[in-house]
């Protein structure tokens, strides 16, 4: 027997290797902070470090601003066609419908915000850059008509690169079409609140997105008519910091306020209840 003998501990059996899925982590596209995807999602893609508002799907946005379980989708069967026979458009459409869903570039319906039944539309940037073609125009027109008939307020959450050029001048005509319905709503004194999220540019900013009785921007959202690249080419100089961001537009009188996504529902609810002459809601919890 040896003099000295180290007592050997039983080795614990090797732990089962944790499979970490590829998408468990996410990164803020503004400040680069890395955190759990789940954490980003729970904060509705608002970065806890820098407050950057990442993109969220239209359905998630509507969940965020409506009272739980009150939203019903409407006009969900409208589908884009290829009116001009535009090279490659049918393929692009098929891919977008497959990947993103059948709502096209906007999800529309009715839901309650702080107990106010509201006609709501939220645009979907993942669907061809939130571009406005005939379907987007028609859905907004039908939603506004419903608002008119039910005398319910209208809330549109925009995110779009502009008109869908694959539908040519028909997409341009959607600016006229949506404006005509917003004008009709205003004549009847029905409130319309426009929420502008990153980015809201081109034909969408040059129509309904800028026509709200109240225009609300999300922090640092890019909002403008022409793209920054085009402007830079035109004037041949660099653009100032913060150009075409929500805060810039607020300063220049184009927005009423800049509101974090996390406070959007409360802001909308308070505004709508005031505009409609309803008493303030007792918030519990």
């Amino acid at each position: 027997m040896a003099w000295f003998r180290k007592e050997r501990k039983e080795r614990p059996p090797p732990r089962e290797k944790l499979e970490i899925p590829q998408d468990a982590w996410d990164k803020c596209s503004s400040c680069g902070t890395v955190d759990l995807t789940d954490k980003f999602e729970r904060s509705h893609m608002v970065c806890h470090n820098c407050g950057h508002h990442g993109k969220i799907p239209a359905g998630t946005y509507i969940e965020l601003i409506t009272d739980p379980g009150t939203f019903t989708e409407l006009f969900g069967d409208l589908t884009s066609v290829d009116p001009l026979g535009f090279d490659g458009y049918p393929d692009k459409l098929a891919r977008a419908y497959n990947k993103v869903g059948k709502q096209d570039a906007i999800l529309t319906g009715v839901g309650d915000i702080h107990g106010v039944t509201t006609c709501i539309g939220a645009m979907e940037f993942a669907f061809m850059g939130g571009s406005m073609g005939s379907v987007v125009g028609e859905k907004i027109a039908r939603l506004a008509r419903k608002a008119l008939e039910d005398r319910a307020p209208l809330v549109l959450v925009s995110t779009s690169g502009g008109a869908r050029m694959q539908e040519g001048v028909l997409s341009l005509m959607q600016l006229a079409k949506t404006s005509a319905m917003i004008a009709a709503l205003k004549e009847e004194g029905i409130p319309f609140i426009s929420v502008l999220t990153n980015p809201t540019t081109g034909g969408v900013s040059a129509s309904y997105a800028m026509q709200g009785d109240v225009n609300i921007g999300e922090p640092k959202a890019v909002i403008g008519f022409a793209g920054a690249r085009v402007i830079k080419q035109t004037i041949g100089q660099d653009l100032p910091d913060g150009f075409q961001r929500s805060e810039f537009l607020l300063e220049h009188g184009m927005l009423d306020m800049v509101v974090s996504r996390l406070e959007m529902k409360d802001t909308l609810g308070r505004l709508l209840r005031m505009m409609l002459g309803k008493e303030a809601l007792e918030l519990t919890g």
Partner: protein
Amino acid sequence: MASNFQLDFEQPIVELERQIEGLRKLADEREMDVDREVGPLKDKLSELRSEIYENLDPFQRVQVARHPRRPYSLDYINEAFTDFIELRGDRQFRDDPAIVAGLARLDGHTVMVIGQQKGRNTKENLKRNFGMAHPEGYRKALRLMLVAERMKIPVVTLVDTAGAYPGLGAEERGQAEAIARNLEVMARLRTPIVATIIGEGGSGGALALALADRVLMLENSIYSVITPEGCAAILWNDATKKARAAEALKITAPSLLELGVIDEIIKEPLGAAHNDPSATAVALKKSLSKHLSSLRKLKTDKLLARRAEKFLAMGKFTDG
């Protein structure tokens, strides 16, 4: 010099014109009678003109629509209208010379005429900003449309712009808001509006003057959501594919009539508007008078209901 400018496909026409002129000069110098020779050449010239202009491809139409010798808004205001009194300024910031507007008479009736104005030369273009308006231009137009509404005068707009100006000041002062506001107000303006695309109808900047009861187009004008160059750059990363984009975007008058976006094509004289501006002005005047007199007969509520219906019907999709 703009007056000598020619497009490459106009070359054979210009050559024949020179030949005829040369022959005339010779005849004058030598006191000869060349009518017998010139006659057939002139016939050939008309034949050549109609052959070339009736077979333009979409991008050639774009070139004609942008032709430096093409008549601009003020040319038509001077030829087709009388008693023009220019009214200026948006009462908020400044007067934008990229849009001209004022009272005028058309066939004796007072109208408010509003048009985008390009410059003929560098000096004019500096002033007119190549016909690309800032927000204050659209706000001037809006102010005068509201004057017209109060005075119960119809509005006649002449659209000719590559687009609303994409600049720093334009964005600061709310280019998007200015266009959006025009669309909203024009949709419910309680007086007839007739818009004519006379050259380039460039996207939102054009539509901001063209939400109208009747939308007319001169035969060789174009109306598009984006320039062919811009479309080619975005889709194919190659601005040289502009001809392909011009074809795909369906921006010529016949295509737009087929799509139901415009109501009528105003025929241009042989060899396009720049070959005979006066005759084009006569055709424009005739068409405007016809549409205005039919719109005048409508009660305002009916006029507005029809205007809304017209734009609400635009677009193609399937339901279900």
